[in-house]
């Protein structure tokens, strides 16, 4: 049960830090584009502001629309308690599949909510979100397989310790790139989705939540930030080598997270959003790299 409490503690930590990370990525991206950009803490301000606002809710919607943000938030929160930040977290009650399916639970309800309001924008966003999710899932599992087969386990503790003890190799690079592609697709960043726009031609995630306002929108933004942080943490812990597990590695961890943030920001400024039907090819590259990594092991 000790593990359980540590997990809860950890998810509170992620809950608090996630908007900061989102702000940092935004800041780095702006700096790389020679802009000053919003404040690092801007995401907190946005959430705080939204929390105070009134909601506008369409009479068309049902309880699904009203409840979905809570379920999304809860799912993401539960997933965050499983991230193997410390070796004992999540042991005994969740593994990598649980984590991925908890994220899927949130997405399931959010897409339902997007259909609930009955506008074409919501439906389009929802359909695209599901489309990307369908393509991401196999790519993600393949890249997870590259380490899971080595660890002979799907438990996050075993995966992270196996990743920590593995020597640096070619297979590792392949697997890391594969997961990075998945990370970009899953967190809805350029070139798969653009997190900064509501433009109807480009939007996926933002289009889906177009009907939301006030507190529920704040909750969704917050949950999206947490989800992004979870994915980045997974990447850092499972795919960046020379992992040091334990409390002593906090500085190393922060350094690696920053490194990944810079990577994401750099990827965002150096490409533009690709056509929706190019995304399958993009993710196929990830699948191929994972298979290569498996062969190279």
């Amino acid at each position, binding site marked *: 049960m000790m593990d359980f409490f540590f997990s809860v503690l950890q998810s509170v930590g992620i809950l608090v830090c996630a908007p900061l990370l989102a702000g940092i990525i935004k800041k780095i991206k702006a700096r790389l584009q020679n802009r000053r950009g919003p404040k690092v803490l801007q995401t907190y301000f946005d959430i705080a502001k939204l929390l105070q606002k009134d909601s506008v809710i369409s009479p068309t919607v049902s309880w699904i629309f009203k409840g979905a943000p809570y379920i999304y938030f809860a799912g993401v929160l539960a997933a965050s308690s499983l991230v193997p930040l410390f070796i004992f977290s999540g042991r005994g009650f969740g593994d990598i599949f*649980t984590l991925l399916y908890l994220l*899927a639970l949130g997405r399931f309800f959010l897409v339902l909510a997007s259909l609930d309001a*009955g506008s074409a924008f919501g439906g389009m966003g929802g359909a695209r979100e599901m489309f990307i999710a369908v393509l991401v*899932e196999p790519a993600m599992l393949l890249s997870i397989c590259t380490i899971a087969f080595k660890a002979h*386990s799907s438990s996050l503790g075993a995966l992270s310790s196996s990743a920590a003890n593995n020597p640096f190799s070619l297979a590792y690079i392949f697997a890391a790139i594969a997961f990075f592609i998945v990370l970009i697709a899953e967190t809805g960043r350029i070139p798969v989705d653009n997190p900064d726009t509501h433009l109807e031609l480009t939007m996926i995630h933002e289009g889906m939540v177009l009907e939301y306002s006030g507190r529920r929108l704040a909750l969704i933004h917050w949950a999206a930030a947490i989800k992004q942080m979870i994915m980045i943490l997974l990447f850092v812990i499972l795919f960046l080598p020379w992992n040091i597990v334990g409390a002593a590695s906090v500085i190393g961890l922060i350094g690696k997270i920053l490194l990944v943030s810079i990577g994401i920001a750099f990827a965002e400024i150096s490409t533009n959003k690709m056509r929706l039907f190019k995304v399958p090819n993009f993710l196929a590259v990830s699948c191929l790299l994972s298979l290569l990594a498996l062969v190279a092991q």
Partner: protein
Amino acid sequence: MIAGDLYLIMLLLFSTGILSAFFTRRNVKYTNYIAHSIALMGCAMAILCAIFVFVQGEFKFTLPVLLPFGEMIIKVDGLSAFFLFVVGVVGVATSLYAYGYSREYEECRLPLMAGLYNAFLLSIVLVLTVQHVAAFIIAWELMSIVSFFLVNHEYEKKVNTRSAYIYILMTHIGTVFIITAFLLLAVAAGSMNFEHLSGNSVNAFMKNIVFICVLIGFGTKAGMVPLHIWLPRAHPAAPSHVSALMSGAMLKTAIYGMCRFFLDFLGIGPVWWGVVILVIASITAVLGVLYAFIEHDMKRLLAYSSVENIGIILLGMGAGMVFISSYEPVLAGLAFTAALYHVVNHALFKSLAFMGAGAVLQSAHTKNMEQLGGLIKRMPYTAGFFLVAAVAISALPPLNGFVSEWLTFQALLCLPLALTGIIGKVGSASLIALLGLTGALAAACFVQTFGITFLAKPRSKKAEEAVEAAPTMLIAMGLLAVLCILLGIWPQVMLLLLHKTLQTFSSLDVTMLGNQVWYQIPLAQRGAGEGISTALIGLILAGGGLLAYVLYRNWEREKISGSETWTCGIVPNPRMEYTATGFSKSIRLVFKNIVHSYDETLVNRSSSQYYGRELSYQVRIQYVFVSLVYRPINEGIIKTATFMKNIQTGSVQLYVGYIMFVTVVVLIWSTRW
């Protein structure tokens, strides 16, 4: 021998049910209540009987009724009891549901339907419990024929009759293979008793033949690709409670047959058996869910989803077969646990979904999703229960679908231990990816199904006038929904049951299931502390959601103002809503090499060249296996028949000549030895 008595009472009840439908046919209202109540009690007896078998051990009867073939042997062991239990649970729910749903059929041969319904249940339990080759085949045929009549119940509709004939044809092709498999073993063993059948009495080549026959024979019934074509036709044609029973219980008899052969009779076989099953299973799962996703007819969609779930079950079984062949009993136990757990789950959530679809059909008089919408406000309970089914089918935690999918993932993850080398590794990784793809597609499919059917505004007058289903139907759905949740957050009960079921098989080692922590599903190959606990996950989920909600509620009362959905200034109407066709279009385009679809946009310019054109959009789907396998076979048969017609002139003399000729040839041939 309480279990034995209960078993006989159950048989008696079902038989009475058949007769009662006949004797009360003058007053269909009575028929409805009496026949379905008797079916309900029979199913309850089936559950009790199964529980007693689990507690007290197996029982056996020998009845000297099947004279030409020796005695009829009825034996309920762990495996039979497990499937009996599943059928019982589904049967209780469908019988309850039938009270309300059958009212639709008061004008339409209700007594016949109720009688056949009892006969159907009777034949299913017989299939699961007789342990004698001839009796099994008779029960199997009975089941096929009774279900054929049920599929064909509304024979006024041409499409139903066609579906029913395709069904009976396919199922008989399957039966041929099943009979072959049984006879090969029975002849070698010199007995028709299941206890004497053994794969060791035939040589390796014949054993492979038996395996292939079993796979094709039972695969046809299970809906394995490419033998699945009857399934999406037959299930929608049957009355909804029968569809629920067909999908929840009848398909499972095929899985039972496979388990019986693979675990009991055939023993340890070569590795390629398992590999073949794995390959077919992954194709079945992915194709099934893809076709489900692009389908608009709710019941057809659910039928395709059954194909997918059979694929997932077979993935578990295939992995189990591989492990058995490579002498890994613990892992084989894990894999078969996954498969059988999914059997239970699929029985629960698919029957639930079929009942939900039936309620919608009864109330809105259409199964076409594009004409539905907004039903969550008109049928709130049905919507809630259907949502449970949708989440469970999508394998999302903390519901039951997740548990079995997780177990299947675990089994596949261990595959490289048995299939060593790069091919094994890449193959297992691909299987895991395909299972993941299946899960994601199922989620997308059921988001679409629930979203389009129940959410937003009604798309037609029919949907606007829908009303909530009858109370008995709601109770039946509620029962299954509760079970879906219960088996999700507390899977240990089912795992204990599976421990009892599988421990008798020497090729499996499931001791791990017997000693578990109450809140945790252990991982097979490692000790305690590794595993998942859906109860704790559910707790965290509930905690997180509650926390967010309470904080929000108590902090400051939220001010909500109502305003129509923003549609760029136009008054929103249902025509603006996203359709199922639109929702699945991107997936359809990506998988266009597998799902051949032809989109046609028809423009009617009769009124004006530029303004006020009428547009209609059509999608036609060409099913790969129909065009690749069935059409050529069909054409081949017709061509051969036309060719054979040439020698059929109608002259009796010529026919006598043929007979003479053949007789002479046979005589010459026989004297050569």
